[in-house]
């Protein structure tokens, strides 16, 4: 029985368990004289039966899934002839892989021997037996769970409390998934980054002023000296993000204030979704816009007043990126300003405050946590943005604070490093993970700082 079919069957059994449990509870209630004689509502008895029906069986299924490969392979290896089993571990491993590939009909590394053919057939057979055993165990567990609980259904059974406990467990599991994913991401980056730092010293990476991620493929290659100083790359990221935030923060905040406090309802109903459309434009399209319209415009106007502007500039990328993240700031800020209770506005107006005083002194401070949240989201979008930078700011890692020159950013470099044609364990490729790690730590600190600021200056209105 395939796993999918098995799970489907389990679901059907659970639904059946639900109705059986509820039916019994209703029967009991009728005999005892009314549903109020039961500890919980009849649905809870049904739910508890369904949970008993599916949860233990599901865990059995997961456990089997975890060990299936090891057990089946072990059994198969045990049945191989002595000559094959006494091979060195690496060769034996290759043989096992080949047999497994043969069994699932994939390409095999070498010639197919009768031994392998036989072993593959045996492997398929073992797998089949394994699947059957799983199906039987899971179904038996399911039915047994259902029957056990069915027998325990009494008016005194605290079904609701049990169900609530299980649901709480589910909620805990869901809330920890994000945490574990984060940890997993950090570990996977960390692992590769450590490999990189074994080849390039940490200090050189963090404080080096030159970024030229090349490694010699041959001994006699020209221009083979690599330089892995990440400062120019991070400087580029900071420069472009700063320009973007200089555009997005004031415009976004002002438009949020206009939408929530000044605009009449009909205008707001139209303008807000329009603004949010900005967030939905693919970044590649912004990239076109930046490269084809904004960058030449800046270059042109720079030429007119006698300033030398490179055709790919941080300014062009930053400006367009700023426009792109306006909705993150404005939409969130608008929501939180709107959520400030009307009573605070009334209080401010009633002592003769003007609208602007009310907004500046009462509404914005009260909405500060949400506004900072919006700004943070915008910053992380700006830091993570790749496409616009590739198209409008170029790839050259200049260490400069001049927004009119071409710069590059961390994410852009990560992409260029990973699409390279070098082997995976060369410093060039691994540098991408080191960049990613530093970027991750940087944004983490940004978040911590912002949260601290918010905690310090937030004004609670509850």
């Amino acid at each position, binding site marked *: 029985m395939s796993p999918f079919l098995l799970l489907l069957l389990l679901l059907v059994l659970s639904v059946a368990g639900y109705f059986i449990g509820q039916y019994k509870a209703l029967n009991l209630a009728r005999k005892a004289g009314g549903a109020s004689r039961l500890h919980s509502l009849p649905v809870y008895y049904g739910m508890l039966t369904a949970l008993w029906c599916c949860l233990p069986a599901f865990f059995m299924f997961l456990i089997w899934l975890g060990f299936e490969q090891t057990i089946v392979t072990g059994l198969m290896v045990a049945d191989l002839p002595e000559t094959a089993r006494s091979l060195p571990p690496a060769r034996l491993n290759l043989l096992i892989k080949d047999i497994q590939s043969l069994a699932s009909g994939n390409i095999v590394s070498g010639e197919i021997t009768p031994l392998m053919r036989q072993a593959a057939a045996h492997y398929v057979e073992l797998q089949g037996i394994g699947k059957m055993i799983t199906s039987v165990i899971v179904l038996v567990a399911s039915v047994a769970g259902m029957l056990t609980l069915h027998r325990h259904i009494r008016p005194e059974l605290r079904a609701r409390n049990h169900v609530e406990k299980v649901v709480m467990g589910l909620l805990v599991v869901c809330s920890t998934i994000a945490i574990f994913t984060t940890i997993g991401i950090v570990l996977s980056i960390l692992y590769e980054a450590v490999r990189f730092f074994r080849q390039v010293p940490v200090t050189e990476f963090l404080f080096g002023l030159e970024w030229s991620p090349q490694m010699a493929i041959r001994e006699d290659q020209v221009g083979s000296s690599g330089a892995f100083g990440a400062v120019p790359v991070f400087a580029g990221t900071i420069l472009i993000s700063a320009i973007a935030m200089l555009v997005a923060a004031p415009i976004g905040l002002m438009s949020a204030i206009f939408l929530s406090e000044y605009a009449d309802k009909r205008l707001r109903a139209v303008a807000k979704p329009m603004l949010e459309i900005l967030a939905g434009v693919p970044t590649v399209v912004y990239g076109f816009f930046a490269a084809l319209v904004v960058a030449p415009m800046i270059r042109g106007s720079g030429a007119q007043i006698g300033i030398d502007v490179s055709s790919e500039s941080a300014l062009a990328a930053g400006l367009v990126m700023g426009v792109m993240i306006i909705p993150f700031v404005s939409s969130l800020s608008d929501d939180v300003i709107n959520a400030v209770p009307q009573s605070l506005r*009334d209080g401010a107006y009633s002592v003769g405050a003007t609208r602007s005083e009310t907004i500046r*002194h*009462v509404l914005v*401070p*009260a909405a500060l946590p949400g506004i900072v949240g919006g700004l943070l989201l915008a910053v992380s979008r700006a830091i993570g943005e790749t496409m616009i930078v590739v198209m409008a700011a170029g790839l050259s890692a200049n260490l400069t604070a001049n927004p009119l020159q071409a710069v590059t950013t961390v994410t852009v470099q990560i992409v260029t490093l990973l699409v390279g044609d070098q082997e995976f364990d060369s410093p060039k490729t691994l540098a991408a993970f080191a960049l990613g790690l530093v970027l991750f730590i940087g944004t983490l600190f940004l978040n911590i700082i912002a949260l601290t600021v918010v905690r310090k200056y937030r004004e609670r209105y509850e």
Partner: protein
Amino acid sequence: MQEVLKQNIVEKRILAPRDSRKTIGNINVPNPRMVCRNVNVYYGDKQAIRNVSIDIGCNEVLAMIGPSGCGKSTFLRCLNRMNDTIDSCRVTGEILFDGRDIYDPSVDVVPLRAQVGMVFQKPNPFPKSIYENVAWAPKIHGIVESKSDTDEIVESSLQKAGLWEEVKDRLDQPGTGLSGGQQQRLCIARAIAVSPEVILMDEPCSALDPIATAKIEDLIEELRAQYTIAIVTHSMQQASRVSQRTAFFHLGDLIEVGTTETIFTKPSHQLTEDYITGRYG
């Protein structure tokens, strides 16, 4: 006892019938601070207040009573144009404050609201420190110039509001951390910090316990010496305790006005009588 009293009253007086919507009683006072004539208020197409005319005298407490939805709060909010914040709200008629129509286009609503302060049903201190709550309005109006001026205003306002002794050691704490009654007195302090002439109170005690209520009522009595107070209340005991004149509203009409004593002992309108004796409301 009350039963007997009521029967006596009924025997002595002829009451206006229930369906009479004309205002009974003397709407005038010798020294009016605010004069309202033929005030109508509409929310969109719905009329919330019909032809209300009444004077509010200097240094008096005017109580406005009436069943829920009778328009007393709406009327109160007209007196400092708080209704401006509601888009669909429209006001006609005349409301004179010191001889000027406050709905005249030439009138600036900002100084008006500084002169006609307001205290709301639910305490709504700003999410700032106790000090800032009181000091904010004088600051934005430019009443204070130096830190010492501000300190003085904060102290005197809190003292007038009867809150100084309780908070003088924690002025930097958030105003929202006070108890409900303290918050409401903080809001009163906030209102009097800009030296208004009139204070409007919209059921200021409805969210408070009896002890806090008693404190606010004592405070109202003290404030009367300096300010004109109009208070909306659902509690007839409160109206009789704190006010000199009482206005009874019913479904958007001002039914009866008179001294508080008259309204509560010898009402002239059947509706007033029914309301104060608790037959509905």
